């Protein structure tokens, strides 16, 4: 029996599995207060994913605000934090959009697919800004190289990034590979994508204009990554078959490549009013966010969503994390043109609803209303926590422990060889040679350079008017951040900033991925607060704004968190890319100069 709004009103006391879905009882009570009744199973699905740490940033929000309040004045910033990705003006009418995101936990469970879908997700974020994705980078951290689980995780992660990114035709222009025992059981897989777009063609995730059509396009919806939804299904339906749903998502890079080309043609034809990718919270996220930022209302018939598995229930459809899907808002006049472009690229597309001016997100299933909520309450008005924090016990002891205490090595030669042979200093070519760094023919610098550099002028038609290039680097050092998260985050920024600057580029903007333990641990929360404060202060000092990023909490094994690991990406611009400075000594007889102290 469908848990309709009508039924919910009639059965106010029916127990609901909110705790199993990760909701606290006061959060659940707030949902009841918002709706004036108990939520339906589908509404509970929406609120539980939208108010999760992952989607709502409820523990980090109060700190992340500093990136805005302390942000330096920047004429280059076109779209700041809060959208799918930040956008910066790179001159001559062109803009770059870039963002880094984590896929840590999925990559531990299933390294190949976890890393692959991590790349897929960040690429769709960039597409949803109206841009052509033009390159990717990956910042990786594993446990000790010789640990047995690293043998499982490392090759799988690299293969996943390689197979997905290569198949999309996105050059991989840089990244990091680091090893530290603290990441055993919690590998970090942070993927970055950069895209290019005309400055006046930025697309936003918004659904304005009553009567406009809501189109779901790309892959069909299957039971991917809805392990959590099974508690809903079994609570409402006591159905065995729904009790075991896979938590693993499998990527289809070929479908994503078609989606990229399809979206670019859609943008070119100017038939898209608003667009959003389907990320972690799938249809729940896309519908609530599009509706909340638009006219405020939307009507969706969930029964129209194309399914890979016809047995899916509405709440499972809402929570499904199936990959390679996008949602667009299209005017009725443009819908035929929209569909024709999708057909040309073999991309399935279905109208599943309409924009309204009711201020409500209403969803139906087999003729019954199963969702009727004010979308903003799910998308923007989630809980915000001021989590308690304090300096970890032993932090000052750690800091007062000085390397001078260590025994001096007797044999310098052996020490040097040890260093050269150590996993963190050795060549990363085993990894980088699995990535295509040349595809699309615009790679000016990549491995082994300190930053990746791309030519802009031939990235897409019309860009011939510019000689510019963009440079990108990511850096982070968990050991420094463990000693001092404030300074550690600043060092990460400084390193990425330098790596961009040495190519001859002017650093313009920052993205970041903050990988930490549990926010419910006050010591971790302190590390987080300090790292954010440090990064925000350093950004102000260097004059580069944070344009976006991602927070990944709960990276811990038992109660042992990873080192706090802020990973910082910096994007810079070269006015004339032909004047880039290559890496290394390029000719004999040149003078070598050391700068700085």
């Amino acid at each position, binding site marked *: 029996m469908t848990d309709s709004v009508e039924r919910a009103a009639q059965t106010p006391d029916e127990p609901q599995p909110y705790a199993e879905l990760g909701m606290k009882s006061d959060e659940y009570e707030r949902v009841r207060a918002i709706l004036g009744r108990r939520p339906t199973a589908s509404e509970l699905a929406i609120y539980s994913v939208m108010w999760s740490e992952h989607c709502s940033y409820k523990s980090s929000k109060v700190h992340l605000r500093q990136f805005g309040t302390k942000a330096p004045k920047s004429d280059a910033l076109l779209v700041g934090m809060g959208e799918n990705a930040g956008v910066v003006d790179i001159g001559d009418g062109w803009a770059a959009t870039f963002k880094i995101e984590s896929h840590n936990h999925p990559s531990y469970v299933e390294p190949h697919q976890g890393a692959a879908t991590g790349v897929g997700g960040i690429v769709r974020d960039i597409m949803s800004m109206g841009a052509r994705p033009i390159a990717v980078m990956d910042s990786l951290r594993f446990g000790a190289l010789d640990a047995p689980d690293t043998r499982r995780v490392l090759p799988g992660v690299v293969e996943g990034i390689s197979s997905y990114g290569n198949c999309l035709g996105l050059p991989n222009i840089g990244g990091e590979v680091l090893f530290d025992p603290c990441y055993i059981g919690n590998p970090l897989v942070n993927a970055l994508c950069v895209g290019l777009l005309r400055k006046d063609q930025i697309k936003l995730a918004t659904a304005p204009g009553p009567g406009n059509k809501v189109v779901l396009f790309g892959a069909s919806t299957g039971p991917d990554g809805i392990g959590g939804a099974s508690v809903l299904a079994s609570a409402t339906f006591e159905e065995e078959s729904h009790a075991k749903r896979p938590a693993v998502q*499998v990527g289809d890079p*070929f479908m994503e490549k078609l989606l990229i080309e399809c979206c670019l043609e859609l943008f070119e034809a100017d038939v898209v009013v608003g667009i959003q990718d389907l990320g972690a919270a799938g249809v729940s996220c896309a519908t609530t966010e599009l509706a909340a930022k638009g006219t405020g209302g939307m009507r969706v018939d969930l029964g129209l969503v194309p399914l890979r598995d016809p047995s899916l229930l509405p709440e499972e459809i809402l929570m499904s994390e199936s990959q390679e899907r996008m949602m667009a808002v299209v005017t009725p006049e443009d819908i035929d043109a929209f569909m024709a472009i999708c057909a040309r690229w073999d991309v399935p597309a279905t109208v599943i609803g309409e924009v309204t001016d009711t201020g409500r997100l209403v969803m139906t299933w087999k003729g019954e209303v199963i969702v009727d909520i004010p979308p903003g309450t799910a998308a923007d008005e989630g809980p915000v926590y001021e989590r308690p924090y304090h300096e970890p016990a032993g932090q000052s002891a750690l800091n007062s422990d000085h390397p001078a205490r260590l025994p001096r090595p007797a044999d310098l030669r052996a020490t040097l060889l040890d260093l050269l042979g150590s996993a963190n200093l050795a060549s990363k070519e085993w990894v980088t040679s699995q990535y295509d760094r040349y595809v699309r023919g615009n790679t000016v610098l990549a491995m082994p350079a300190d930053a990746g550099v791309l030519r802009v002028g031939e990235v897409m038609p019309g860009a011939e008017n510019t000689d510019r290039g963009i440079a990108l680097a990511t850096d982070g050092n968990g050991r420094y951040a463990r000693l001092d998260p404030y300074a550690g985050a600043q060092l990460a920024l400084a390193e990425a900033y330098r790596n961009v600057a040495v190519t001859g580029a002017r650093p313009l903007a920052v993205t970041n991925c903050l990988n930490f333990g549990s926010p419910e641990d006050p010591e971790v929360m302190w590390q987080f607060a300090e790292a954010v404060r440090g990064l925000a202060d350093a950004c102000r000092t260097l004059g580069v704004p944070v344009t976006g990023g991602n927070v990944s909490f709960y990276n811990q094994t038992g109660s042992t968190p990873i080192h706090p690991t802020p990973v910082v990406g910096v994007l810079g611009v070269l006015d004339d890319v032909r004047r880039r400075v290559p890496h290394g000594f390029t000719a004999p007889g040149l003078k070598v100069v050391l700068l700085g102290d």
Partner: protein
Amino acid sequence: MARVIVDVMLKPEILDPQGQAIARALPRLGFSGVAGVRQGKRFEIELDGPADEAALSDVRKMAETLLANTVIEDYAVRVEP
């Protein structure tokens, strides 16, 4: 010497992009009447000795730990007749 076959297929609920791509191509190539295609792996294991219970139990362990990724795949072991 005996031969044991291990078939490894993606679990039914897991997306099989390859199988889907093949299924989508078939009508264009003039093949109709196919409702779905799934693609998996087939391993032929040549044993030094006979395929007795001990050997089969070894192969099963091999399938479980190495040949299949049981997070997303199922496997079946059988002796080649």
